[in-house]
């Protein structure tokens, strides 16, 4: 009975999303204030219905209701509780429901915060969000109903994909999706502005915190995914330029451009139509990502089973949303001209170059991701585009971007005067270059020119970003959270750059064959196999190896890499043994029984990899800090009072 109620709740949610879209978009257009007011009620109703559906599906998972097909396919009576809940997003139907639920959460949050916005504008934002909810709900009900019954019920379930039975993967999809879906809010703010045909002077200030929040979630989500693949896939990789990784990375690049262009729009009223375009692009890329993952058109680690009807539906929805938004843009953007000038070396210019480089980077990633599809479509030989293409092209856009970042943070709005900052910039540049060379030659042996550049650039960004905040502290001036957040995020990207440089240039890896008592040397560390033993987990059997790692005869740690075979699907998954020593990971994964008492292992020494997870964390925390800045709360208070303010706030 309950699953039918869940299905019914989704149908009601669809109707309410339709009403939300209708009232929100048509109400303001026809100036019907009652319709406008009804939008919020539709939002609340839709949220309750979607939450009910999610609750019912979780209940079915927790209580082993194998008469629901989706539960039977993705759960099992031996599956621990935590993974029974996480199994909700273990496959296509549930992930889609999660997507819809998160969209409903964002929409509800917007509706609550929008009580302080002009009524008609808020209704338009909610209306556009309603269109998106409607599309996804229709998609779910038409092609991917998670409540489909399995009659007679299965005796036991087919179990959750063993790769997903991991704490890292339990949290990665919700966080990533929260970021993906959050970009829909920026998209809706952009569409609402275009529907109004004018951009309120406070528009950018309203949009910024939402965009920053979505971006911060996206940053965390991508990093969690990378971290998970690093320690569970058994090959020790953290980024392979896989199509699905790219699908999450492209919206991130464009969202990064968007939060910078929003700064210009807020502070100077410039780049208005460009900001709108970026908001459309960022969300379009996140929809495109969904299409690529769900339709199975691309070959990837993450693709779910292909279903052409789903692919066609998403493609049509994608065309409708992107096409509609771009048509609206072509029609309305010319109304939003701004005629303010700025100098070549002003902050505006630097942010413009930041935007161009980020969009170019996103475009090269998009090109490489879609090339195999395009080649197939035109009957060319099948291609595979991998790291050899992505790495150099991506660096090409990133190196100038990072160099400009160090200088750009010191540029003033409007005026192109950099003289005051020239001396400290030069000094920090020299210090950073010396530091880069010292680290490379001193600590690791100077084999890589790129390593000096990477560590040099990273150090320069850190030093240069700290100049202004330290100067303000010394003069006992206040520091706004926005400036602190920006500084922290910039330091985060620098930390990530340094980490990437270290990992890429100085990783030592080797596949080795060991028998008990034997040892092998990798990157100056000795890995000695003590032995292997079978062990039993909650729903798997495993082989666990005991490996002692030592350096110069000094034992450092004992690692226990495992190879787990899950009972139901008879699938094997590795759990690497990892020990972190001063930011360097000593990594060992257990391979196969080679016969003759030997086992294969993959051993890796990855310097600085800890920083690779810390950098993005700093970025996300920086975003969180910036969006808690008081001027966003002030903006709400003034908007409520009906005052439209000019440039208030700090120099940032």
């Amino acid at each position, binding site marked *: 009975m309950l699953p039918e109620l869940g299905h019914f709740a989704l149908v009601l949610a669809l109707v309410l999303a339709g009403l939300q879209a209708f009232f929100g978009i048509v109400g303001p257009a026809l100036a019907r204030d009652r319709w406008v007011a009804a939008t919020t009620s539709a939002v609340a109703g839709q949220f309750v219905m979607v939450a009910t559906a999610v609750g019912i599906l979780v209940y079915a998972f927790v209580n082993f209701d194998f008469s629901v097909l989706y539960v039977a396919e993705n759960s099992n009576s031996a599956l621990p509780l935590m993974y029974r809940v996480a199994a909700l997003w273990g496959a296509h139907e549930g992930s889609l429901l999660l997507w819809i639920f998160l969209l409903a959460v964002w929409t509800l949050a917007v509706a609550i915060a929008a009580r302080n916005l002009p009524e008609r504008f808020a209704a338009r934002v909610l209306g556009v969000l309603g269109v998106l909810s409607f599309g996804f709900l229709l998609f779910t009900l038409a092609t991917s109903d998670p409540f489909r019954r399995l009659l007679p019920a299965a005796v036991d379930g087919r179990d959750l994909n063993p*790769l997903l039975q991991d704490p890292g993967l339990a949290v990665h999809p919700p966080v990533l999706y929260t970021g993906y879906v959050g970009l829909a809010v920026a998209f809706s703010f952009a569409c609402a502005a275009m529907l109004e045909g004018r951009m309120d002077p406070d528009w950018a200030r309203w949009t910024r915190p939402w965009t920053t929040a979505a971006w911060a979630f996206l940053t965390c989500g991508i990093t969690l995914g990378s971290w998970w693949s690093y320690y569970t896939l058994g090959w020790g990789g953290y980024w392979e330029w896989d199509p699905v990784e790219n699908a999450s990375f492209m919206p991130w690049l464009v969202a990064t451009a968007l939060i910078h262009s929003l700064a210009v729009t807020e502070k100077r009223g410039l780049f208005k139509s460009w900001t709108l375009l970026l908001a459309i692009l960022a969300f379009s890329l996140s929809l495109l990502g969904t299409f690529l993952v769900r339709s199975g058109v691309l070959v990837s680690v993450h693709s779910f089973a292909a279903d052409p009807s789903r692919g066609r539906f998403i493609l049509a929805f994608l065309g409708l949303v992107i096409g509609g938004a771009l048509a609206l843009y072509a029609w309305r953007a010319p109304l939003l001209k701004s005629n303010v000038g700025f100098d070549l070396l002003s902050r505006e210019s630097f942010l413009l170059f930041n935007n161009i480089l980020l969009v170019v980077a996103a475009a090269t990633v998009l090109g490489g991701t879609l*090339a195999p599809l395009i080649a197939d479509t035109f009957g060319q030989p*099948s291609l595979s585009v991998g790291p050899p293409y992505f790495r150099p092209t991506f660096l090409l856009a990133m190196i100038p971007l990072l160099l400009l970042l160090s200088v750009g943070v010191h540029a003033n709005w409007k005026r192109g005067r950099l003289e005051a900052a020239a001396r400290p910039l030069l000094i920090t540049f020299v210090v950073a270059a010396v530091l880069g060379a010292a680290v490379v030659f001193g600590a690791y042996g100077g084999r890589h020119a790129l390593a000096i550049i990477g560590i040099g650039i990273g150090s320069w960004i850190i030093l240069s970003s700290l100049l202004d905040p330290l100067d303000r502290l010394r003069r006992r001036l206040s520091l706004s959270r926005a400036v602190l957040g920006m500084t922290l995020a910039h330091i985060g990207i620098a930390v990530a750059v340094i980490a990437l440089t270290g990992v890429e240039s100085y990783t030592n890896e080797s596949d080795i064959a060991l028998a008990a008592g034997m040892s092998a040397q990798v990157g100056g560390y000795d890995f000695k196999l003590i032995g292997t033993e079978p062990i039993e987990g909650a729903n798997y059997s495993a082989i666990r190896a005991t490996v002692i790692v030592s350096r110069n005869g000094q034992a450092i740690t004992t690692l226990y890499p495992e190879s787990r075979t899950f009972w139901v699907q008879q*699938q094997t998954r590795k759990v690497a043994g990892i020990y972190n020593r001063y930011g360097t990971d000593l990594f060992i994964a257990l391979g*196969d029984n*080679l016969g003759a*008492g*030997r086992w294969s292992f993959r051993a890796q020494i990855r310097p600085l990899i800890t920083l690779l997870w810390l950098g993005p964390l700093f970025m996300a925390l920086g975003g969180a800090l910036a969006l808690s800045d008081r001027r966003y709360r002030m903006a709400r208070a003034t908007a409520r009072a009906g005052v439209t303010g000019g440039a208030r706030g700090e120099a940032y």
Partner: protein
Amino acid sequence: MTPQRRKRLYLVLGIVVGVGIATALALSSFRENVTFYFIPTEVAAGAVHGDQSFRLGGMVTTGSVHRVPGSLQVSFLVTDFKHDVPVTYTGVLPDLFREGQGVTVHGRLDGKGVLVADEVLAKHDEKYMPPKIAGTAPVSRGGS
């Protein structure tokens, strides 16, 4: 030309030149770094030129996996049920590498028509068949 316009002209010129260079470099890098993807029938038909590296997709022939006991070197046949290509690989195989299942291998042909692999990928799905043989593609990695 007013100074304002001149500045804007420089800016636009700079952007055009920059984006142009980036596009040119991306395209040339693309041409040099793209890998072709073949199935055994295409390899048998001579699609591979010289020591060009490429990806081979197919199924691991049942009973063809051989290993010298205790060594990391393994050999197996990749088939599309019309032709076979022998493969050798030294290293850790991915978790889902199994006889009778789909696999993608990257490497070069040696003089005797044996593919010397530097990377072996297998799909996290027992129903997987490589593209051209069926429809979808690979997932778990083992490379060196």
